[in-house]
């Protein structure tokens, strides 16, 4: 069985060789040897086909275009980002209270700040007041005590303008900035 298959395969190998040889010889007979070089020279003298998209073939333009697109996108995002209202303020406020709650007490500019944990839903005004009390040391009590205005006491004047308060509500860095400002005010 195997032997017969081998014979068949060997015969086909010879067939393959013969067919390829004959095909090659016939094709080579028609292949113009002298004409080939002259035709090649003629084609080489002809100008190169016009290059399309010349702009992108220069190595400078593609990166420049990329930078331009990125800059435009950045400007668009910057212009679009701020001032979309209370949701953003609320989120910032929650972030700040959480970061304050994480540490019981810390010092900024030589002033002791106790932890303030305003309840959920407490306004930014009351929290700022609590922060003011804690910062001045006038009320070094617990969070709930410091957060509420003293009963019968004079109402705490707003320490920061609405604009500044807005700044408070933007995370940890803003807290430090506001407190530093407060320290300066106190010293004056």
């Amino acid at each position: 069985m195997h032997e017969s298959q081998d014979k068949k395969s060997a015969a086909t190998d010879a067939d393959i060789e013969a067919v390829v040889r004959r095909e090659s010889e016939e094709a080579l007979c028609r292949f113009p040897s002298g004409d080939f070089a002259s035709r090649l020279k003629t084609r080489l003298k002809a100008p190169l086909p016009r290059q399309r998209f010349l702009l992108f073939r220069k190595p400078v333009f593609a990166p420049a275009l990329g930078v331009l697109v990125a800059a435009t996108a950045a400007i668009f995002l910057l212009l679009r980002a701020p001032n979309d209202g209370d949701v953003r303020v609320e989120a910032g406020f929650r972030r700040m209270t959480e970061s304050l709650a994480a540490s019981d007490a810390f010092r900024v500019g030589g002033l002791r700040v106790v932890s303030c944990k305003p309840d959920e839903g407490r306004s930014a005004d009351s929290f700022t007041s609590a922060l003011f009390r804690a910062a001045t040391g006038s009320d070094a009590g617990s969070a709930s005590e410091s957060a509420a205005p003293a009963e019968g006491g004079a109402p705490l004047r707003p320490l920061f303008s609405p604009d500044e308060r807005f700044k408070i509500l933007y995370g940890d860095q803003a807290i430090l900035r506001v407190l530093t400002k407060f320290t300066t005010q106190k010293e004056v």
Partner: protein
Amino acid sequence: MADPTTEARIETLLPFREEVFLLCLGFSRNAVVAEDLCQDVYLKACRKLDSVRHPEAVKYWLFRLARNVCRDHHRRSRLVGFDPIDSQNEIAAASNSGETDDFEDRLVRLKSSVESLPRKLREVFILRMYARLSYEDLARTLRIKEGTVMSRLHRARVAVARAMNEEHHA
């Protein structure tokens, strides 16, 4: 009259034109197309010859270029979806067994068998059988080991033989 540099380039490359033509014939399965492809190969080679660092590697570089040109042509022709007129005639002639001789029949079967090979096997088969490259030249052209060349060639031969037999019995 071409400039001296071009003349020199053509002179450098011209000794290999038969191998390149046969290689193109093996890939294209059509003598007229092969001649055009051979011209394209030489046109590209003359323009890019400066990129070859070692003069002794020009031959292998040229064969690689030819293979790539043929591969591109094959891909394009598959995309466009046409068959050379000659091959259609051959198939028609083969189906009409009373009017064709044995060679035509075997040629058609061989071409379709080679076409059905996997790419790596087909390349080795064509470079060896049509362009008649030695094992060493084949290895350096395809940047593979000689053992790999031999192994692929054996597998290609067996596959072609089997396919031809199957077609014959079908």
